[in-house]
């Protein structure tokens, strides 16, 4: 968003140039910008400067509306950003839950654990043992079970923890847009006839305790309120511009009429105007 405002400012020729309002002490009357933790004050200033440059305030009331529009627009952007972040988080959470059930826990991960457990001179056999265990050879499964039991765990626990870890890593890579992870996730989703949107909807509907749907609705309501207030301020600026336009037209007319002078009545009794 900040980048977008900067790009827009650059496009409008405002880059690096501070559009200072008519008088800074006037803006002080409206109080400091109401930013929350982590919000960029410079981006807010740029937004205010852009609106100010577009409206070109003529009096304090115009300035009141400009500050209003800027702060309400900032609020709209804040709520939109929040909704987007929440939905993205929920989508990734849904994907992670899906991957925990469908991602394969490979022999290589088991081999790494076995390498740590086995005595040093047998460490090389870890990979072979893991492979045999994954292809469900009874002797290997027994041996792995015993080895894991010695360190206070079992195969089920190792597989559960492993798939959880693997799903987390895969989701992180997917989020970063790594090609391999995206391909793997898409393949797993297609294999189960699922899509990310369906997973998200499932997450929203099933997690009633988390109030996710209520949160999204609340944010939508806040966005609508801020938008309607911003639009009301814009309408007021329009109305005042119309009044100002009419006043200016009248003034121009008066100035033009002032350029004419009345010439005394002629013999015919008619009054004539001349330049």
């Amino acid at each position, binding site marked *: 968003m900040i980048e977008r405002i900067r790009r827009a400012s650059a496009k409008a020729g405002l880059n690096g140039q501070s559009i200072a309002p008519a008088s800074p002490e*006037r803006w002080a*009357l*409206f*109080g400091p910008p*109401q930013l*929350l*933790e982590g919000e960029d004050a410079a981006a807010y200033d740029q937004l205010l400067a852009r609106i100010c440059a577009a409206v070109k305030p003529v*009096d*304090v*009331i115009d300035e*009141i509306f400009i500050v209003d529009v800027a*702060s309400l627009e900032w609020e709209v952007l804040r709520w939109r950003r*929040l909704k987007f*972040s*929440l939905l993205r*988080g929920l989508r990734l959470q849904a994907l992670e839950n899906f991957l925990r059930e469908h991602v394969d826990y490979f022999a290589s991960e088991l081999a790494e654990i076995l390498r740590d457990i086995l005595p040093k001179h047998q460490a090389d056999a870890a990979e072979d043992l893991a492979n045999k265990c994954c292809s469900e050879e009874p002797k290997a499964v027994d041996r792995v079970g015993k080895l894991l039991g010695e360190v206070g765990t079992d195969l089920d626990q190792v597989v559960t923890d492993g798939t959880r870890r693997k799903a987390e890593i895969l989701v992180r890579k997917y989020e970063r847009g790594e090609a391999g992870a995206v391909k793997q996730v898409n393949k797993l989703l297609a294999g189960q006839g699922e899509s990310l949107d369906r997973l998200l909807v499932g997450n929203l509907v099933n997690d009633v305790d988390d*109030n996710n749907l*209520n*949160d999204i609705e*609340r*944010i939508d309501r*806040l966005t609508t*309120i801020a938008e309607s*207030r911003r639009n*009301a301020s814009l309408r*007021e600026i329009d109305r*005042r511009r119309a*009044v100002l336009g009419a*006043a200016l037209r*009248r003034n121009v007319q*008066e100035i033009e*009429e*002032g350029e004419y002078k*009345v010439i005394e009545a002629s013999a015919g009794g008619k009054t004539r105007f001349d330049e």
Partner: protein
Amino acid sequence: MTSERKINANRANARASTGPKTAPGRTRVARNAFRHGLSLPVCSDPVLSEEVETLARKIAGPDADAISMAFARQIAEAQIDLRRVCDARHRLLSNTMSNQYYDTHANARRKVKLIGLLLRPDAPEMSVETLTKLVTSTPQGPRKLATILSQEAKQLLALDRYERRARSKRKSAIRGFDATQKQSRSVMSSVTSDMQL
């Protein structure tokens, strides 16, 4: 019928419990019913009144007549009132956002219950790491803001009502001010044209 002895005892007890005695105690309880002070008019605060006057003079301009000045004062009052409401809302959001222990009521209850369980003699076994994670985990980032919006909804709604009222007052005052200005401009222009003729 209440006995004389009981009445006397009640009176003596009542005299003994008349609230805090010290000056700081009295000051503190005097603010018990105070929440945000937004129901008080702006003019009841001398600092804000001064701000209203400054803003009103700036709105009306140097040669303002009495009617314009009255409307300008109304606009300034509504504007300062609006700023007061926005400040209160901002304070509420900022304070809760900066509270690192802020959590949902349900989670806080769960944590208290868990600690209560662990303090019992037959407490379940739990590693310090797991316990620390369970007790110190709080919503972060966007989830935290969503939690605040959900839990402070009642207060935010009350502030929103004040904001709506202030905006409505300001809008009517600005329209009144603009109408007065328009009228005075048309009077001025008719006087000018009369003088030219």
